């Protein structure tokens, strides 16, 4: 498998659509599931590397502008995102002497410059002010220290105000570092902002929408004007309006845009349009890792033994640990499809088939080295993996993913996991809601993790149009008694957001009709050989991604039966992929869209002065285009997987996924609540 993947993933950015047809026969015929792991077609969509280079060089420039040796004080929440655009260790070249975390407490600095690099958060401003005062009080031998504050992505009035109130604004040189879209993978851009959904939907603070609009404008500067912007949701509408506002502001940086010849449109999905999806337990490999181990800024914390075998020479693949981080047991490992081909192969698979996929890779490795053996389960595989030598990288990747799979496997075998999954699936299918509520309550009585129990209830409220007052109050009462009364504000906030409400509710309740009109529940799903995006939840198709299909793959919603192009088994090795149809707005789904609360967006953008002629001679009709899907408020790994799967179903259209951040149901709910109470004295 991966040997045949090699040429395609290292192939240049050539756009040769006929290759995908030519390549199909080379796919091994071991099983039909080659579809799910289909080689990334040679057509890879647009090159997002520019954005990374932009972010990297901007940082270096900012640092170089500050003369002399510097001590860098770094906002912890920025370490991950920065690690994605530059190797933090390389900042030494910019005369960065030492790097510390931004935490309250005195500094011990010997350099001429102190540079704080942080998000514009008020609490951080107070810490910085305190540190500035301390440094000023400290008599310095090496002359006055120069204080610089680099705010990401921009310096806000609020920060200036706080610094002024603290009396240090005049002593600080306040600068901005515009860090916007970070390419996490070549088909995935993220703003890596935290708690966006809370800000927008709960607090009514549209700052993330504004930042998103700026980032999308920058994107258009690089790749041209989106010929069409589609979207669903009130916040999506506000974002589209803002983009239009920038566009028509006449600001020099937004002038003279040409219509893009690489991108055919932007689809904005407002998270508030689809809360159901993140509430369900993600069932892809990436999704499971995020739900149960946690992926932050593309990195996962793992037992070092999983990457470094205890005995042989260690070869750390990647670590963004800072010099000052205390040595912890867990180690950060960056999951990257370009460095780890095995990961690229399995990240979007339904977890149910990951084990067998890994064992097949192991067997192939084994075949490569001759030692034939029959591997029955993960444990045997692991033992086996320890034995084979050579091909260190591949072996190492296999060890890592086998190890991670081994951690996840027992979770999927628990009663708790399976009961909850069943309840979720019954709820999205609209089947016997009350029975599911009892299951959820039973989980609660067993003191199962609060987030899962709450996700279940929210799912019930969303799919059932609320929960009867009596049941809801009993649930809440139990919830507070089991997990603590400090969750009460969270429950109120969920009510405010319409996520946990009493029935009959005044809110619109489109769930039952959507289930049908958008085929949200698919019975004949096949985890191993997906024939529909619903494989990511083993039978539930994310509404968010279905909406994208309404625009880009109308057939896949309308025709579900066999004999259509949706049957991958028929297609493999034989016919070429069908040509993607051009974007024609929401046509055909107007009623469906109208039934979902929130505004519907459909804007055609035209470049001024009729510019936008394709100059590179690429034939647009034959060629390929990229559709950008922007998730405002964050997206899940399952949604990413579904869109990636869709990229492989037609020829002529790739999806570029952009998001404010990557979320899951648990961290989403956590962000809606207060911080846990502090320990009492």
């Amino acid at each position, binding site marked *: 498998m991966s040997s045949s993947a090699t040429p395609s993933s290292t192939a240049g950015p050539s756009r040769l659509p006929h290759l995908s047809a030519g390549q199909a026969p080379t796919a091994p015929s071991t099983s039909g599931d080659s579809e799910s792991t289909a080689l990334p077609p040679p057509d890879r969509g647009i090159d997002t590397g520019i954005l990374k280079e932009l972010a990297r060089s901007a940082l270096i420039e900012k640092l170089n502008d500050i003369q002399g040796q510097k001590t860098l004080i770094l906002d912890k929440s920025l370490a991950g995102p920065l690690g994605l655009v530059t190797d933090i260790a390389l900042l030494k070249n910019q005369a960065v002497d030492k790097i510390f975390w931004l935490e309250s407490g005195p500094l011990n600095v010997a350099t001429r410059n102190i540079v704080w690099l942080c998000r514009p*958060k*008020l*609490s951080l401003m107070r810490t910085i002010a305190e540190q500035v005062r301390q440094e000023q009080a400290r008599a310095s031998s090496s002359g006055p220290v120069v204080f610089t504050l680099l705010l990401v992505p*921009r310096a*806000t*009035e*609020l920060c200036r*105000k*706080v610094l002024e109130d603290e009396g240090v604004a005049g002593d600080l040189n306040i600068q901005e570092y515009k860090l916007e879209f970070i390419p996490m993978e070549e088909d995935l851009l993220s703003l890596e902002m935290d708690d966006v959904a809370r*800000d927008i939907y709960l*607090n*009514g*603070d*549209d*700052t993330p*929408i*504004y930042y998103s*609009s700026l980032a999308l404008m920058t994107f258009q500067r690089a790749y041209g004007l989106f010929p069409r912007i589609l979207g669903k949701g009130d916040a999506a509408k*506000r974002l589209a*309006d*803002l983009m239009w*506002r920038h566009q*028509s*502001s*006449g*600001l020099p940086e937004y*002038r003279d845009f040409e219509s893009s010849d690489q991108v055919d449109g932007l689809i904005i999905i407002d998270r508030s349009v689809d809360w159901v999806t993140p509430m369900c337990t993600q069932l892809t490999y990436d999704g499971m890792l995020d739900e149960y181990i946690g992926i932050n800024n593309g990195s996962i914390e793992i037992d070092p033994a999983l990457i470094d075998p205890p005995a042989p020479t260690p070869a750390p693949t990647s670590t963004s640990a800072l010099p000052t981080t205390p040595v912890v047991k867990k180690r950060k490992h960056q999951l990257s499809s370009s460095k780890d081909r095995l990961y690229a192969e399995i990240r979007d698979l339904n977890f149910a088939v990951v084990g067998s996929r890994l064992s097949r890779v192991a067997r192939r490795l084994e075949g490569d080295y001759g030692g034939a053996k029959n591997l029955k389960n993960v444990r045997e595989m692991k033992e086996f993996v320890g034995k084979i030598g050579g091909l260190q990288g591949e072996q190492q990747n296999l060890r890592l993913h086998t190890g991670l799979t081994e951690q996840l496997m027992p979770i999927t075998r628990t*009663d708790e996991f399976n009961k909850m999954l069943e309840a979720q699936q019954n709820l999205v299918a609209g089947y016997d809601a009350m029975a599911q509520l009892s299951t959820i309550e*039973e989980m609660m*009585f*067993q*003191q199962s993790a609060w987030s899962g129990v709450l996700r279940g209830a929210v799912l019930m409220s969303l799919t059932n149009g609320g929960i009867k007052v009596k049941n809801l*109050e009993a649930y*809440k*009462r*139990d919830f*507070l*008694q*089991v*997990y*603590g*009364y*400090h969750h*009460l*504000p969270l429950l*109120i906030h969920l009510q405010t957001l319409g996520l946990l409400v009493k029935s009959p509710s005044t809110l619109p309740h489109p769930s039952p009709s959507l289930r049908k009109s958008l085929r949200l529940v698919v019975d004949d799903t096949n985890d191993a050989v997906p024939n529909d995006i619903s494989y990511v939840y083993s039978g539930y198709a994310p509404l968010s991604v279905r909406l994208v299909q309404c625009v880009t793959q109308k057939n896949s919603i309308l025709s579900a039966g066999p004999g259509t192009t949706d049957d991958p088994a028929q297609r493999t090795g034989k016919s070429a992929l069908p040509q993607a149809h051009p974007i024609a707005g929401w046509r055909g789904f107007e009623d469906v869209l109208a039934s979902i609360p929130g505004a519907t967006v459909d804007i055609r953008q035209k470049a*001024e002065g009729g510019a936008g002629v394709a100059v590179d001679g690429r034939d647009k009709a034959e060629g390929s285009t990229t559709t950008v899907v922007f998730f405002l408020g964050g997206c899940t790994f399952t949604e990413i997987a579904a869109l990636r799967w869709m990229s492989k179903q037609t020829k002529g259209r790739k999806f570029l996924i952009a998001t404010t951040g990557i979320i899951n149901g648990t961290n989403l709910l956590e962000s809606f609540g*207060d*911080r*846990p*109470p*502090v*320990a*009492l*004295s």
Partner: protein
Amino acid sequence: MTILPSPTLSWDTIQNVFYRKEEVYQMAWSIPDLSDYLIAAARNGGPIAMIRDERKVMLLGKHTPGKPKIHIYTAAGALLSSLTWDLTPPILMHFTSTHLAVVSDEGTYRLYDLSNPQQYTQHTLGSEASEMGLVSAKGYDEGFVVLTGGLQFLEVAGWKGGRVTPLAGSSLTDPPTSWAIIPPDQSSSGHIEILISTGTTIVTLDALDRIDQRISRGPFSHILPSPNGRFLALLTGSGSLWVVSADFGRNLSDVSLADVMDGDEVGGIPDGAGWCGDNAVVLSWGSKVVVVGPSGDCLRYDYPPSVHLVTEPDGLRILSSSTSDFIQKVPDSSLAVFSPGSSHPAATLYDALDLFDRRSPKADEIRSIRADLASAVDMCIDAAGREWDANWQRRLLRAAQFGRAFLDLYNPSDFINMAQTLKVLNAIRYYEIGIPLTYAQYLLIGPSTLISHLLSRNLHLLALRISQYLSLRPDPVLKHWAAAKISRSKGVDPSERGIGEDEGLCRVIVDKFEKEGDRGVSYAEIAKKAWEAGRVRLATMLLDHERRAAEQVPLLLQMKEEKVALVKAIDSGDTDLVYHVLLHLHSSKSPGDFFAILDDSSNPQLTPAINLLQVYAKEGDRRLLRDFYYQDDRRTETACLEMQEAGEAVEPEERVGKLQAASKAFGEDKERLFEAKMVEDAHRLLSFQLAQERELDHKYKFAGLSVDQFISRLLTEGFSKRAEKVRNDFKVPDKRWWWVKLKALAGNKDWDGLEAFAKSKKSPIGYEPFVTHLLALSPPQPAQAASFVPRCDPKIRADLYVLCGDWGTAAEAAGERKDKAKLEQLRRSAPNGIAQREVDEVIRRMK
């Protein structure tokens, strides 16, 4: 060859180097003697300012009574405006691109807007300057330097009231005989430096240091840096002109002034001195002007009765009572084409055109320069740019065009650009406009500076046409035009203004902008001008056309249109802008007024601002938040805030108090009775936990546990009575109670207790959890687990036994139910050995 009035008529040589002097204008002024005036002229063909030099003795009757006046003329001597100067005598007049700066000897300076010279801003240089007075001052593009009576140099960076910073101590005891500024872009340090002639040496001074250059030839009457900053011309007291490199490292020439004067009766220190480009030094004594070459050769001119020299980057302007002349080293391209006997291909090309025009077959000579034709064409184009006379320009361009015809491939853009540029230059050189800008100067300053020069002369139409002709953005012109239009109406009494005049003016401006302007002309600046001119209504109207809220909002706040500012900020979607307004309002209004402005009950548009206020206040100003909630009757929010603060409280008593407050706040909203009850319970729980801690002599820590955790803890520690009490007090449902107790007892490995509990009554959660939970412990307890299997549903007993690892009993259980299928399944899945045999045994017995 026919004799044409050749351009070389104006040429002269100094040691084989050609210089040319052209009369550019006949002056329109009638000033008998320039030496009666202090004169300042802007570079690059800019205007000229003069004021009567008070130090000069006046003939009776020549003196004009009243306050002295500053007259501003074009370079062609046409009066532009006259200003009354009512301060102490000026020591410096200096033109910036848009203003005339005049510095008085008491340290006050004024900036006159050239486009509206009656308007000025006045600044002072601080107490030292005003007490000690100023000795002298010199300006450069970005600011100026003054020497105070206390012999301290002060630097003023930027003309518009920039900061005054003292330079390093000069250690002077007497005023220097001369000094000069080295601007930052020409100094080696990148900061401003000055050169001071003191004693026999020259001292370099900057903000930090004073460096003696250790020169012994001083004192110097003039220190003149060349326009490009690479050379210095020094006039020594002993009467010689010494030219050195800027770092004093290389001697370039040393000429005795006595030789220069060639026995002329005038002598001594020259009245005027300047650089002619970077090529030669020009000195003047009275009416005599001498261009001095490196070895002492010179050119002499006479302009009775007096002259004023203006150094230009590529030459020198000589102003006299009657003319404005321009002298420069002949540019290379002109030299190539016109120099006598030039063998340059350009000369051949030019001659060929001449011959062609006269239908001479010799024109065919052009073929002899085939290889160099392209460079000949380029040269002719460039030479065209260097001529003042349009006839010559045309002729040279024609020569270029002629040569082009013989070239296969030639990019015409240079040709077109030159033709365009000359059209512009000729237009502005026209004497009525009077800007004698050379091609070299034009290249140096660029078209946009030219435009701003034209704007400072209020030549809007010309500026607009030139902008359009050169495809520049017309915005600056339009903005300036509109501002001028508004300020012209300033003097009019508002009551005399006709009805609808604001509308009219606004419409005129908007129409013009839309017709001539590019998309995105900013109206905010114009609106600001209108506001400053006291036309608030017009300002508001104009501001409505502004598309960028970031531009609108600050002005609206200044105009006290707070509510409008807030709405505009919200509309912009830029939350930071909203905060800008909010913070402004918060600091400038009383709390009552502040909240009144924010009242969104009447205006739902304001909701986003209120949301943002809460976000900010939650982090930055809790008191403001409480006040806001209170005045807006937001009980739920108040309660949630109390809850949040309860969670942040470290002191138990404080947390109890916060919970009580939260419960009270919820209770005031009848929609929140459930929440009020819940918080009441939270309060009760914490109080009870604290009481129990006290009762048990603080050996245990209960505070902060949830109900279930608390019960579990009490059971684990063996306080089952207390646990029962909590159960009853908080009406814990049976199912939950059973789960908690099961887990607590199992965790304690209290098997007897577990057995007793299981028997105490029929378990509401069944007995299966007993089995599964015991197996899930680590280490698992299969034996204990198996003991609960008989209490479970018979149907699943076999499977549960299997989980406990007891295959035999599992088979028995299946056998009791005569479940053959199950038995068969057991047999298949049982591990080898005893387990399998036990299953087989049961199967055999069944038969």
